[in-house]
């Protein structure tokens, strides 16, 4: 176990190095010039060249990559071309909304999707199963921005219960924080509820056909206990795997949802960075997302050990 953990953690370093190199090369070879975006419409060619030079964009690529690597080693992730602030500081400013949105979405998803999936498996083939699966197919098919705008129209504009946009920091009080999170988290969770409910249903339905379920029933154990203690626990590995994949997918979903609800999180920071060609910011955020992705995968792998004692690394 310990050697597995050490091996996996050490393996993260080359993975992140490769990601860093690829992202660096992509930013440099993609069309677009951050200096041109900085100087504005009516700047002269001389001003443009001066800004390019100041940003270090005229240096050879190995020099630019080495400079960024040095900054990475020192933990700053470089400095934003536009905002003239360390990328780590900018990420720090934006991480709370994204983290809160992701956690709330995951909580809502797990609390709704797993019971739905279990109930659908329990009534496998019945009208309840078909209805739940039909709804999940709908939830999975409708784009996040459509769901977002519909929820805004109902809950914010018509009923005026919730704000249209923005994010209330938790330091400003639980009320504003929660009221700003409910709609975006609901928007995002509808998609993941659909995904995880379907996987839960399939895994639990398969488990329900196993011999140990028949044995449990023969012993007179209640159906609820059979479902939760025997079927669901044994179906946990694929469910946890999909939740792990869901976290990665959430990163993409957050970008759209943050845009619709004007949440100042990492998603909108990413879009801004790409549109303005703020290379250090693009590189820093991508590296962070990659680290999160690798970390979540590691946690999922570790969770297998707990959920299924037969698994050994």
């Amino acid at each position, binding site marked *: 176990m310990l050697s597995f953990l050490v091996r996996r953690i050490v393996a993260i370093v080359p993975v992140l190095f490769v990601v860093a190199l690829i992202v660096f090369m992509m930013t440099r070879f993609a069309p677009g010039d951050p200096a041109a975006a900085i100087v504005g419409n009516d700047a002269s060619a001389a001003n443009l060249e001066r800004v390019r030079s100041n940003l270090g964009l005229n240096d050879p690529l190995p020099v630019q990559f080495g400079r960024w690597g040095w900054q990475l080693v020192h933990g700053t992730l470089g400095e934003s071309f536009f905002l003239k602030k360390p990328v780590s500081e900018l990420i720090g400013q934006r991480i709370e909304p994204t983290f809160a949105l992701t956690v709330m979405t995951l909580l809502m998803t797990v609390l709704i999707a797993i019971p739905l999936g279990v109930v659908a498996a329990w009534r496998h083939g019945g009208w309840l199963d078909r209805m739940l699966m039909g709804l999940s197919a709908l939830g999975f098919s409708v784009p996040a921005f459509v769901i977002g705008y519909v929820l805004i129209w109902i809950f914010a504009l018509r009923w005026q219960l919730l704000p249209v946009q923005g994010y209330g920091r938790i330091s*400003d009080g639980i009320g504003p924080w929660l009221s700003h999170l409910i709609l975006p988290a609901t928007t995002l969770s509808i998609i993941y509820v659909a995904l995880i409910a379907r996987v839960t249903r399939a895994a639990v339905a398969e488990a329900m056909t196993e011999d140990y379920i028949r044995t449990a029933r023969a012993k007179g154990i209640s159906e609820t206990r059979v479902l939760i203690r025997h079927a669901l626990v044994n179906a946990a590995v694929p469910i946890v795997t999909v939740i792990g994949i869901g976290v990665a997918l959430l990163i993409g979903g957050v970008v759209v949802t943050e845009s619709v609800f004007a949440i100042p999180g990492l998603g909108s920071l990413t879009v801004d960075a790409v549109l303005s060609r703020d290379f250090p910011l693009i590189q820093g955020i991508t590296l962070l997302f990659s680290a999160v992705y690798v970390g979540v995968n590691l946690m999922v792998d570790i969770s297998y050990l707990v959920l299924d004692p037969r698994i050994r690394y």
Partner: protein
Amino acid sequence: MAIRYVLAAFLFGALVAGAGHPSLAQETKVLRVVPQSDLKILDPIWTTAFVTRNHGYAIYDTLFGVDAEGKVRPQMVGEYSSSPDHMKWSFTLREGLHFHDGKPVTSADVIQSLKRWGERDSLGQRLFAAMENIEAKSDTTFEMALKQPFGLVLEALSKPASVPPFIMPKSVAETPSDKQIDSYIGSGPFIFKVDEYRPGERVVYVKNTKYVPRNEPASGTAGGKVVKVDRMEWVILTDAQTQTNAITNGEVDLIEWVPADQYLALKNNPKIDFANLVPKGSFALHLNRLVPPFNNVKIAQAALMAVSQEALMRAQMVHKDLYNTNASIYPTGTPYNSDKTSFFTGKPQLEKARALLKEAGYQNEPVVLLYPANFAVLNKFPPVMAALLKQAGFNVDMQSMDWPTLVARRAMKNLSTQGGWSAFITGWNIPDNVNPLFYAPITGNGQKGWFGWTTDERLETLKGEFLAADSEDQRKALAVSIQERVYDAAVLAPLGEYKQLTAIRKEAIGGIVTSPVGVFWGITKN
């Protein structure tokens, strides 16, 4: 409906849990503004971004301003005079000018600020090239001596757009002009809250309670800059639908620039009114005169003949009350606007264009038209322009890209078939083009000039004469000559003018000051 009440009860509980954190809006008058874009760069001398310029007007002051009629008015300056030949100027600062840190504004601050501005701004560079020296005579008086005639001294010092000459503390203005400042102390009517600045989320200003406004009523960037709210928050909302939803729900008070696709929704909303915070803007087609096919002036003129302002503006702005056509390079209602436009009419002259192409020996070389597909402000133009050029006989290659790619691509001097370009369309604010020397793309100095790199000695000569002219009548005549020369040399084609409507909450907001740039003094909130 039961869901509604359950949710309401739940939210009530949550809000009670969050109680004890008093809202700022209850204590102070807060003006919540959706600016035209996110404020990313805080140095208005370092960039020409409109939003940074507006930020500059909030926290800095200028020596002179421009009123609603376009006339230059003193702002920080109390008294000024010039010698009969206008070669020597003397300026005295008015009383009561202080920076936000309490220090008085002195001649030394002004001179250093002007020097930094003069290194970045094109008109500033011309002013300093014509200047013998500038020196402080006392803490509040400074003098400027010229070595060659320069007819636009006051116009330069009041320049409202591109890079305005904002006055900063000397220590801040000593920052090299190719580096951004890192201190944001001005002497303007608002104070920038650095500690509350969150790029991508909000920008916060508070009223400068020690600011001494002029006695005249506010007009343009001139007059009394009286702030009537305690705090101003710029709420960064980039999605047009979210902007509309937010003002409808009362979460913001003002959208600086209403996107055309939200115009009808807001017009039909009884809670919303429109105001003219910023008067107008214009669009223009820019040609690459350095490489084929537009390095041939006749072929370039044929492209200008293909322009149909009505078709192009209708496609982009959709609603007729949001635009007007104008064949002059200068905005309608401004002093140099003229109907003497050489062959250019703004209406399609396709037969003439085809004949001209034949005469010029056009060999069907591709015209690479840059198409910023993700940029809603401009992305309806290129397909229409491409169709018009095709009707005129051009072989058009419209290439799709995002806006940052376009601004990088337009700097390329390669052949259009080797990563270069032939034409693109962009927009200009009215202060940018009221005057041929303010209007950046009107250059005839080849590769030293603006993108497109037209070489035309006559154009440069006329601009020099305009600069040296010492009467307004002379300047008007020269401005018209420059306009005709711009068309004859096929530098650009204006596509029309658009209204920059500002949406306000009808019952809450008043006192909008119309200005060449976005200014927020004078605005009241109930």
